[in-house]
């Protein structure tokens, strides 16, 4: 049992941190990046490709690096620390994860190779308007005609979809079940918009859009789709953890320097005690994030699903607590768009509502609560 990074993992963290520190030296750089299309820094995206970061999850056969979940988690955590708007989680972890899980060898080599090289951006279209974290598709339907497959329906929000080259779409199959398809973005109507944290998402309409089945055509992929969502939930929790780390640090720094009534704010115990509670939430969340990330390596699908619910609930609770307190302890400045703290709170909510919020995970855990005697931390 070991909760520390090895030398290579530390080196990865330092190099990613260094690269991001250059691209997003301050919050202004992030504001500039999200102010213009495509809503992220394409130069940085290219550098991440050169470093091998975009190919981390994928096997070397498919142009990737073949790294484990801990390495991917490190990247997500670093991205979170600077509120990076790059669609790593959406494009690499989620959409790329779907391709890696269910695609044919040819599809993997093609799509994952180009994704790893930074040549294309993918986005997963798996949510219908009003939908709530279901692996079964209900907003988009697949049809098979003589010469191939087409999709019809609407997916929204498609995170990272505004500037994706290809969409990985989950769609209801004619004979029941859910399949996955690759659609060229030009074959659909993509309407981009900014979420509350100014990262980009899209509403995507398919009208008999030509689609290529991922993997064996017509097969029900619900279980694999659910597992990739669980993996994305866990890695999204890493990203949220990075956001929270920055918020706790920014808040303590602010309490040490901001003066009111002629003294710095850390003179007031009413404030320092609240900062202490933020630290408690951060430490507890860190433990569960690390645990859930390590659970992925075990490879057991049910264990990963359980870990996703547990880390989802923990990070959701911690995010609400830290995100709200970070703004409150900063006062008015925390409300402004020019300051990172409040935008971080927005980012935490976007991650949470996209990947699975607290009540959702609590409901799922509640359903299973009598299936076990104790929750075992160590198997």
């Amino acid at each position, binding site marked *: 049992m*070991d*909760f520390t990074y090895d030398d290579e993992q530390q080196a990865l963290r330092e190099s990613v941190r260094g690269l991001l520190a250059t691209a997003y030296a301050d919050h202004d750089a992030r504001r500039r990046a999200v102010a213009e299309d495509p809503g992220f820094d394409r130069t940085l995206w290219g550098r991440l490709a050169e470093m091998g970061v975009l190919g981390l999850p994928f096997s070397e056969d498919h142009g990737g690096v073949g790294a484990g979940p801990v390495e991917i988690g490190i990247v997500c955590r670093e991205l979170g620390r600077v509120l990076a708007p790059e669609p790593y989680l959406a494009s690499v972890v989620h959409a790329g994860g779907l391709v890696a899980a269910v695609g044919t060898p040819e599809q993997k080599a093609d799509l994952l190779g180009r994704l790893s090289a930074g040549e294309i951006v993918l986005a997963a279209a798996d949510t219908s308007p009003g939908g709530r974290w279901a692996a079964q598709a209900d907003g988009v339907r697949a049809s098979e005609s003589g010469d191939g497959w087409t999709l019809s329906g609407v997916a929204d929000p498609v995170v990272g979809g505004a500037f994706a080259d290809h969409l990985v779409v989950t769609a209801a199959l004619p004979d029941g079940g859910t399949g996955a398809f690759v659609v060229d973005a030009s074959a659909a109507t993509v309407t981009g918009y900014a979420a509350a944290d100014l990262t980009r998402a899209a509403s995507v309409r398919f009208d008999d859009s030509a689609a290529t089945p991922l993997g064996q055509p017509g097969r029900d992929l619900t279980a694999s789709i659910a597992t990739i969502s669980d993996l994305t939930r866990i890695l999204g929790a890493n990203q949220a953890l990075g956001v929270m780390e920055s918020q706790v640090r920014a808040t303590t720094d602010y309490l*040490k320097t901001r003066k009111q009534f002629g003294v710095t704010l850390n003179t007031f115990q009413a404030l320092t005690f609240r*900062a202490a509670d933020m630290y408690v939430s951060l430490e507890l969340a860190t*433990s569960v994030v690390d645990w859930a990330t390590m659970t992925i390596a075990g490879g057991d699908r049910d264990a990963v699903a359980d870990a996703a619910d547990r880390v989802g609930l923990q990070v959701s609770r911690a995010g609400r607590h830290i995100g709200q307190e970070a703004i409150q302890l900063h006062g008015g400045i925390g409300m402004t768009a020019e300051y990172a703290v409040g935008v971080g709170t927005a980012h935490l909510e976007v991650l949470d509502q996209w990947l699975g919020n607290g009540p959702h995970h609590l409901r799922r*855990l509640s359903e299973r609560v009598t299936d076990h*005697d*104790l*929750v075992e931390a160590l198997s």
Partner: protein
Amino acid sequence: MQLELSPADAEFRTRMRDFFTTKVPQEIRDAVLEGRHLTRDQIVESQRALNAEGLAVPHWPTEWGGQDWTDLQRHLWHEEMQRAGVPIPLAFNASMIGPVLAQFGSQEQKERFLPATANLDIWWSQGFSEPDAGSDLASLRTTAVRDGDDWVVNGQKTWTTLGQHGDWIFTLVRTDPEVKKQAGISMLLIDMTSPGVEVRPIELIDGGHEVNEVWFSDVRVPGDLLVGEPGQGWTIAKFLLGNERVGVAPVGATKRALATLKKTAAAQMDDPLVRARVAELENELLALELTALRVVAHSAGGEPHPASSVLKLKGTELQQAVSELALDLAGPASLAARADDDSPQEGWARRSAPTYLNLRKASIYGGSNEIQRQIISRTILGL
């Protein structure tokens, strides 16, 4: 990063689990698992069973019965013990005065007291808090004045847990009123049968007799029962209160209490709100347990991990939260708290209100949770 225990640690855990579930009397374990009070004899019997196997004081120096385990092994020992319903070795002996004597005591004191302390032949009480010295312990006023080779002690201690069972009491006393308040404190070992020692019970809100006042009136204490040097008491007290990394949070006991509640209150487990409360608590306990594991796996150089304060703070909150859930699930049956044993109400329900009330102490003793927040904000966050 790796989740699995090493084969050696996994084997160690199995060995602990086997011992605790087979070698400690079932009757004692049942009492713990059901949340009933233990008698003095049961606590002594259990600790002696552990001590016979070298499992009562594994964190002591090996020459005095310690095991030279890693912190992780001690954590596993501690968790498995709680999980099996084995009473934790008496803290005053095993966690407090034992390590203090091993570190600061004279050779004579070690030989006289340590074996008897490990085996609970001597039941120690703690004489720290006073009516005007709680969190501000350094303000204590009990005095010890030199008279020939002896010290003469006068004053009052309070909140002395299980002092009614105590044979000896390790006591912080003021030996020098002239110097800075921390520098004038010493630790004396006092035989509780000495003339002038009086133990008076304090009745608590749960109706139980758990704590006491201990009064000292011209109590003569031989000079060789001072620990360390005169004036070293504050250093010793800080060592005693701060050297613990394992078992800071009652993780195993709280997990077990919640698991037991799921069974005893099974009739209410169909209620979605109840299920949600249990699921939320289980998740918080998982976070706590994992944090405890991080602390024990990665504490360097004998210094307490800074996150120890997190464990105390959150651990006591969750301990209290589980008792709140038990009380809510008991409902009207909880009113039978002081009914006779032939009450038609179930035992767990009858114990729920006293337990809830009793556990309010958890966020007060051992450095109140406000003190823990102070430690976090000052020491960790630098505020």
